[in-house]
């Protein structure tokens, strides 16, 4: 059964979209990640225009994050003060990001820019996660190895505007979360991701936040940043396809239910190692896309 996507302006098998949403939902349920970083490249592989994939994913992540944050909210695992500062940076960053996106689209370089951003970040994050999980797995076999310090003090902690974040048990410069928020916001707009896969490690390793509040706080601010991206992309590039987003979401919600159950059966470091391999596989596919000599050196775009 085919469905004509009104904004993407392509006809696509409805079960393919539901299935894609389901598989990515399953993975995000297993690993506790947003899945945007997998969904956007996969949509592009399916033939959805890259710009529409990005705009639509932002919209879908709003929904996914809303449903995800509610559980954390109920358990009180959201540091609202930290979230708001990350968000302030995120709004600024994503607004800049959408403008960069529009310029790159005009120049005909947006496909490449999206792919390169994914290659860089999936490559870095995938490699780091793989090493980290390997180390944990190895260490757990040598029980009396040295433990890591909770968090180290670097020049980053010497910045002005020191603020107390009660829930995170931190006394750090507000500039730090603001800058992280802004940086992730730019990426969120260009790549059509929530940015959790960068935000979460940054919160743990750069800010030194306790793991318990990291996911909830990250989801909390992702809702607003992706909402901002959805709005700005709707206005500036008209690339948000609500039909596509809705279908992905239905598949995703169902997949995530099974995913969380499977995830509960696996150990943390094994999960991270597995996720790292998936991330690296997607990265590798994108790398081959841009380095393999294309079948046709020319490409065509029908302008509106």
């Amino acid at each position, binding site marked *: 059964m085919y469905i*004509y996507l*009104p904004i993407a302006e392509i006809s696509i098998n409805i079960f393919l979209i539901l299935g894609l949403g389901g598989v990515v939902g399953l993975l995000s349920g297993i690993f506790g990640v947003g899945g945007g970083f997998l969904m956007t490249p996969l949509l592009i592989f399916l033939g959805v225009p890259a710009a529409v994939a990005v705009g639509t994913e932002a919209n879908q992540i709003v929904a996914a994050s809303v449903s995800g944050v509610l559980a954390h909210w109920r358990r009180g695992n959201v540091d609202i003060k930290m979230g708001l500062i990350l968000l302030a940076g995120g709004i600024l960053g994503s607004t800049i990001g959408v403008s960069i996106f529009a310029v790159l689209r005009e120049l005909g370089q947006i496909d490449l820019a999206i792919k390169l951003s994914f290659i860089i970040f999936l490559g870095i994050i995938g490699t780091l996660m793989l090493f980290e999980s390997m180390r944990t797995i190895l260490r757990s076999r040598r029980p009396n190895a040295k433990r890591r310090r909770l968090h180290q003090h670097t020049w980053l902690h010497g910045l002005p505007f020191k603020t107390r974040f009660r829930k995170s048990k931190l006394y750090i410069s507000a500039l730090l979360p603001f800058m992280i928020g802004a940086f992730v916001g730019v990426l969120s707009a260009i790549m059509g991701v929530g940015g959790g896969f960068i935000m979460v490690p940054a919160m743990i390793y750069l800010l030194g936040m306790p793991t318990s509040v990291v996911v909830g706080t990250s989801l909390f601010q992702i809702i607003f940043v992706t909402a901002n991206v959805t709005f700005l992309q*709707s206005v500036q590039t008209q690339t948000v396809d609500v039909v596509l987003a809705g279908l992905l979401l239905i598949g995703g919600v169902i997949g995530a239910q099974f995913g969380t159950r499977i995830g509960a059966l696996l150990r943390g470091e094994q999960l991270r190692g597995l996720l790292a391999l998936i991330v690296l596989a997607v990265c590798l596919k994108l790398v081959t896309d841009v380095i393999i000599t294309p079948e*046709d050196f*020319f490409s*065509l775009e029908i302008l509106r």
Partner: protein
Amino acid sequence: MIRSSIAKLTAFVMGLCFASSLSHPAMATSVLVADLNEKEVQISTDFNGANLLLFGTIDREISDDVVIIVEGPPRDVAIRLKSRVGGIWINTESATLTNIPSFYQISSTRPLNVITSSKSLEELQLGLNHVPFTLAKGSAISEGVFEDWQAALIRNMEKSKLWNQNSDVSIRKGVLFRSNISLPANVLPGNYQVRILHFRSGELIGETNSIIVVRKSGLSADIFEFAHKYSPAYGIFAILFAVFMGWGAARVFRR
């Protein structure tokens, strides 16, 4: 049998009227009449391309040919050329063309170069290689030869099934001709001009025209219009829709 001969007769009479008004007085007179099984195509939510049937009659002599051209609404088209920069393939050159038919199907009884001379194909702009290749204002081809870019346009349009050249027009019993027009799922809405040409011994002796209207309809048309005409409202709608869906999902699966 009787019915079909009456239909044929009617077609013949109608064709006479057509021919007298359209064909050039100096040429041999053509009797040509054609119709489509559908004149309107709706791009609705379940749209996945459309197949139309064009049929008609001619007073055929042994050397006669029919050429059918379907041309979609014109658009500007950007062609980009990739080259290798530091190991990766980047769009380095681009040219913008103007007034390129977003759809172009030319079907004929025999291959075009058999039907008439290349000179008259060029004059009549028949065939994929004779679609006017006009650069947009301020655009130029800075790299490679013109022919490469033209070939790239044709190749890529054919690949996306928007352009097509074939000799699939069949003629039955010497008078009835028919041809399929296949509009792929990625056609643009607009007016599609249909021209049916009648050639005798390489000379164009008659022409008749028709039109297919392709329009978006139903929910997908409404969403498209909403997104493009009222973008800010659409953006807010998209966000609220997502918040509602997310909240609903969390409620349904709350354990």
